[in-house]
């Protein structure tokens, strides 16, 4: 549905987006992650046709955003960063205006606007002037604008920014629901959100894609992913440590606590054994030596850890 091919954007001397390529299919929810200034918003602005790329192409639903902007833009619903609004309008008149720009008129317009108001929980403020709304309501109004024409493609730049916890949850549910039948790209700094709603995530740093995969795949990239945390009693810590290091699938062992008859630590597996093999070996070892295995936990890997490792790695 969305094809981004070798996209670059140069702002003066600064290369904000550097040769990014990816594609998003229908029914996919793609999360955009990356540190501040990574180039997420710039990429989204190029996809929506707001800024022209320095190099590269974007096609949305088969239409090149540069060559056939009207057709491509008609397929997109876009929530810009900071949710800009015409503050001299009311929520309702603003939504009517955007619906009309999308070519929705008459009775269809009325029902489209009402539906968007309902989905974004704006009933209470529908007739209120936009410049008197609180930040969260402004954000939701702009979100309503992006879905009013039931677009095939949704581009949402930090859709949950400034929302209260309940609303964050509602918006996540909304994205997940819409994602089933549409193509969604959204950016966020909240990593739990990625796990909760994305079918795929891309991490951008300094304008480049540094990781691309499902949230589970990405989690497994964390250095601790697959590591087995153990707590074993019954032998001197140093003895347990040397035995653990000898296990066939262990690479290294990190000590957390070591005592007369206690060892607490983390055993890191070989690349080939990030499934349960290592945990099995540890269990066998402990059982064979009649040691007391008090804790045995395989680390799933954490997104925040992976995120930090990947984005710091690029820096250095």
């Amino acid at each position, binding site marked *: 549905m969305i094809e981004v091919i070798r996209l670059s954007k140069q702002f003066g001397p600064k290369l904000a987006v550097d040769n990014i390529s990816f594609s998003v299919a229908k029914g996919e929810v793609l999360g955009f992650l990356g540190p501040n200034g990574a180039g997420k918003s710039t990429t989204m602005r190029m996809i929506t046709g707001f*800024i022209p790329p320095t190099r590269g192409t974007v096609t949305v639903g088969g239409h090149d955003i540069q060559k056939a902007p009207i057709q491509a833009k008609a397929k997109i619903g876009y929530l810009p960063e900071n949710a800009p609004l*015409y503050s001299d309008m009311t929520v309702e008149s603003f939504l009517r*205006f955007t619906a*009309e720009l999308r070519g929705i008129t008459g009775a269809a317009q009325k029902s489209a606007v009402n539906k968007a108001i309902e989905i974004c929980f704006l009933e209470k403020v529908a007739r209120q002037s936009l410049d008197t709304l609180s930040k969260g309501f402004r954000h939701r109004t702009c979100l309503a*604008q992006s879905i009013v024409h039931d677009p095939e493609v949704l581009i949402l730049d930090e859709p949950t920014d400034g929302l209260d916890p309940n609303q964050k949850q509602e918006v996540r549910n909304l994205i997940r629901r819409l994602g089933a039948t549409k193509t969604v790209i959204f950016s966020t700094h909240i990593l739990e959100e990625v796990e909760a709603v994305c079918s795929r995530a891309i991490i951008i740093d300094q304008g480049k894609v540094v990781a691309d995969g499902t949230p589970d795949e990405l989690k497994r990239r964390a250095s601790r992913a697959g590591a087995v945390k153990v707590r074993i009693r019954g032998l001197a810590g140093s003895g347990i440590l040397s035995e653990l290091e000898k296990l066939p699938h262990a690479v290294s062992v990190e000590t957390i606590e070591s005592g007369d008859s206690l060892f607490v630590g983390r055993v890191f597996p070989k690349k080939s054994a990030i499934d349960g093999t290592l945990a099995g070996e540890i269990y066998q070892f402990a059982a064979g030596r009649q040691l007391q295995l008090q804790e045995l936990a395989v680390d799933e890997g954490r997104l925040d850890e992976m995120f930090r490792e990947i984005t710091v790695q690029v820096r250095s």
Partner: protein
Amino acid sequence: MKNIWVVFKREVQAYFLTPLAYVFIFIFLILSMSLCFVFGRFLEGEDASLDYTFFQFHPWLFMVLGPAIGMRLWSEENREGTIELLLTMPISTWQAIIGKFLAACLVLVSALAMTFPVILTVNYLGDPDGGKIFSGYLGSLLVGSASIALTCLVSAFTRSQVICLVVSVVLCFFLVLIGSPQLLEFLRNIPATGLLETLRLAALEIADGFSLMSHGGRLFGGVLRLDTAVFFAAFISFCLYATSVVIRSKRA
């Protein structure tokens, strides 16, 4: 066409649902009427024509009031970031520009329409030339829209309405001034020979050719000429086209 209409409607609402348009119309009426009755010696005039008593002041008023209406057109979009919404809608940039421009012109038209008491008065006092009054209004409208078009262009450069206002007023002032009868008279009377003479003639030509005042003045006097029409059409289209170029290149 439909998209122009949608943008136009929104902008008209922005003008008329806020005090903006009313303040503008009120100020224009106060100033144009008082200039007409006080300085134009309207009531003492011998003939029932309006060109020197009424329309002649309009370029000077629009020099400030045109920028006052037009200053929000794009600078507001730039400041609020709504330009990102507008330009990611399935409409073209020129449709947005024309819709906005026409909305600002509607404020101008309303202001001119509200000067109807002047027409009633001349009709009461004498027997005015209807065609001349029409061409006077046309001239006034064209001078006003030209200043709005120029302001539209300036507003695309900045996110500050104040900067836009100041710059546009200066530009409009210049464009009105170079065609004022006093300046043209001055240019005509400089004694010069040789190269200076050519320069003087060129300056005169340019001043007369580019001034909103000279072209407007012809219409105020009831003279409808093709070059006047061409001038205003070219001036306004150039400003609006340049606006689209600026809007596009600002994002590149």
